[in-house]
């Protein structure tokens, strides 16, 4: 089958979802009101609450949620064939992710831009907030540990990406200096930055950096992991203007360019899908497609992480409530398109079925490596860029995604640790909190051996944890919809589906971990399972309570908000 046809069908489905389903959600389910005074206007302070142009807001909502996960997940899930992955990515984006992200944005917007954690406390019960903290800590732990492994693997397998990946840090620091100290104009700095980044890719392609087998007693992979954590720890402690802000910015620009390159190459070259539509010849040890497909592809179909971004920062900057449709739903569409591009790259980028099967020789194989090889071949055919250079471009894109998520992830995890410390009654300064985070994450990464593969081992648990977070957000949305007597099925169906799949997946994986004698993962699995069952019980109770209570008008809601504010102030 021709990949262009598939790409066009996929894009058409997702765009139709935006045009029709999101319109239905905006009008009938969330009843977005252009006259509603959004928190950005009501509480405008020029700092947190700032009404922002919807295209700009979409831009950084999308770049904040797009990490390496929409590449890692689909690139692994193609092992069951490209059709199930493609269907889950498209239908998941339309009916699950768009609904969820728009819902989180709406819920937060209706509550003065409060975060999902705070709303969980209010709608799901007093345990809601603590549960939220535990789940978010685990998600961040998995992201940080797994992304370190993803990056180190890429740096070892694609040595041409080493110079651009680390050079991007230097470019970011220079951009920060140029803007804040030298006061250069931003468009000029942006152009210079992007050109410098691509020049580094050319340089990297000419001078691959291959590390010796062992450095200071560590394997090349383990060495990169240690360096990455050191970098992320330092980056998370530096002032944001110096590194993180310019790095995220240049990475956002690079994201748009690289996505454009990938789709242009697919459309021009139109390679055939080499992978089977349904893979009946899966390697030994591959788990069953149901439920594992639905947790392997989390970002790109539905992701709880988006709810945190939507309610954390995006909701505070919404200019008009009706903009939520574009920012929230279309943000999910952006990530769906990234996942769709990945599915096509890892299915059509190989010359023969045998070459594809060789890469997908076991579950968990393939991954980002397959994306770089397959996508590189497509970019080479479509745009005539030499195969090695196209591989370098895609590998650098994946490394930058993962690295920016990782350094922000370490920073966020530090906040969570400080908050947990506060609940336990002691104050933690940034440095000790960062050290605690690094010790736990590095410990986990090396838990499976000195090669540092432990981070990737826990990746299958990322999907389930992330889906539980999505379930928590969807239950808040469902409770709000029930209280307002609005159609609740659009929230209830995805909610039930993700929670049921997550719980089954956790049971399946528990059996696997027990059989393999992997006690660390077994313990983590049990913790997540308890959290999942807890979410389900609390959500069902909250929904029953909401059903029994009388319908809630906007005026009643306003009164409740005032009472909740007064409560908070004590």
């Amino acid at each position: 089958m021709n990949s262009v046809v598939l790409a066009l069908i996929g894009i058409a489905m997702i765009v139709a979802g935006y045009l029709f389903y999101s319109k239905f959600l905006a009008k009938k389910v969330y009843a977005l009101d252009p006259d509603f005074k959004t928190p950005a206007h009501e509480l405008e302070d020029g700092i947190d609450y700032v009404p922002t142009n919807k295209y700009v807001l979409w831009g950084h909502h999308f770049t904040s949620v797009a990490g390496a996960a929409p590449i890692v997940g689909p690139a692994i899930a193609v092992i069951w064939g490209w059709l199930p992955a493609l269907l889950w990515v498209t239908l998941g984006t339309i009916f699950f992710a768009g609904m969820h992200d728009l819902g989180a944005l709406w819920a937060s917007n209706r509550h003065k831009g409060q975060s999902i954690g705070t709303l969980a406390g209010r709608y799901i019960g007093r345990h809601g907030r603590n549960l939220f903290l535990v789940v978010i800590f685990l998600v961040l732990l998995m992201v940080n540990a797994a992304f370190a492994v993803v990056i180190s693997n890429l740096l070892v397998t694609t040595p041409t990406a080493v110079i651009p990946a680390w050079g991007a840090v230097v470019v970011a620091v220079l951009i920060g200096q140029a803007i804040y100290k030298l006061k250069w104009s931003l468009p000029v700095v942006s152009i210079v930055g992007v050109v410098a980044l691509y020049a580094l890719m050319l340089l990297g392609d000419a001078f691959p950096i291959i590390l010796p087998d062992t450095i200071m007693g560590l394997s090349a992979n383990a060495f990169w992991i240690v360096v990455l954590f050191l970098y992320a720890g330092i980056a998370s402690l530096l002032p944001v203007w110096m590194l993180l802000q310019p790095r995220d910015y240049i990475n956002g620009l690079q994201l748009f360019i690289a996505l454009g390159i990938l789709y242009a190459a697919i459309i021009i070259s139109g390679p055939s899908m080499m992978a089977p539509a349904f893979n009946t010849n899966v390697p030994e040890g591959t788990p069953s497609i149901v439920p594992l497909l639905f947790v392997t592809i989390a970002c790109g179909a539905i992701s709880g992480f988006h709810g945190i971004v939507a309610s954390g920062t995006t909701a505070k900057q919404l200019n008009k409530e009706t903009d939520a449709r574009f920012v929230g739903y279309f943000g999910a569409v952006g990530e769906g398109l990234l996942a769709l591009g990945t599915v096509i790259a890892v299915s059509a980028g190989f010359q023969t079925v045998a070459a594809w099967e060789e890469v997908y020789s076991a579950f968990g194989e393939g991954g980002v490596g397959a994306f770089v090889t397959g996508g590189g071949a497509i970019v080479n055919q479509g745009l005539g860029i030499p195969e090695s250079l196209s591989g370098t471009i895609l590998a650098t894109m994946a490394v930058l995604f993962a690295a920016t998520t990782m350094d922000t992830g370490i920073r966020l995890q530090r906040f969570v640790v400080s908050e947990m410390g506060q609940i336990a009654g002691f104050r933690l300064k940034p440095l000790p909190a960062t050290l605690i985070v690094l010790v736990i994450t590095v410990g986990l990464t090396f838990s499976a051996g000195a090669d540092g593969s432990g981070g990737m081992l826990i990746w299958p648990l990322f999907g389930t944890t992330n889906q539980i977070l999505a379930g928590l957000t969807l239950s808040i949305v469902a409770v709000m919809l029930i209280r307002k007597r609005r159609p609740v099925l659009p929230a209830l169906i995805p909610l039930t589906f993700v929670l049921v799949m997550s719980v089954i997946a956790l049971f399946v994986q528990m059996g696997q971990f027990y059989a393999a004698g992997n006690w660390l993962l077994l313990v983590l699995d049990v913790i997540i399972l308890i959290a999942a069952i807890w979410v389900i019980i609390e959500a069902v109770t909250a929904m029953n309570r909401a059903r029994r209570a009388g319908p809630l008008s906007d005026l009643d809601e306003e009164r409740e908000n005032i009472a909740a504010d007064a409560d908070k102030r004590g």
Partner: protein
Amino acid sequence: MGRMAGFAAGLREFYYAPYRRTLARAKRDEEDLFMMLVLSESLGVPNPAGYYTLELLPVVFENFHDWHRRMGMDHSPLDSISCC
């Protein structure tokens, strides 16, 4: 606003928006420190640059109330400035 200027403004917004809060906090912390230096002589801390910082007092007057509240003092610590 011309199309190019509009684009530059959008780009600027895209650059600043995600970190607006963090940058504003950092700027405020820096200004708090500066305020303390300016007021150090009045607070009883010998300051060799006191002669120059004295000139800055009228400039920082406006922000004095917010500053002492942020520093954890409900009322003005200085007899000379009785803002509340």
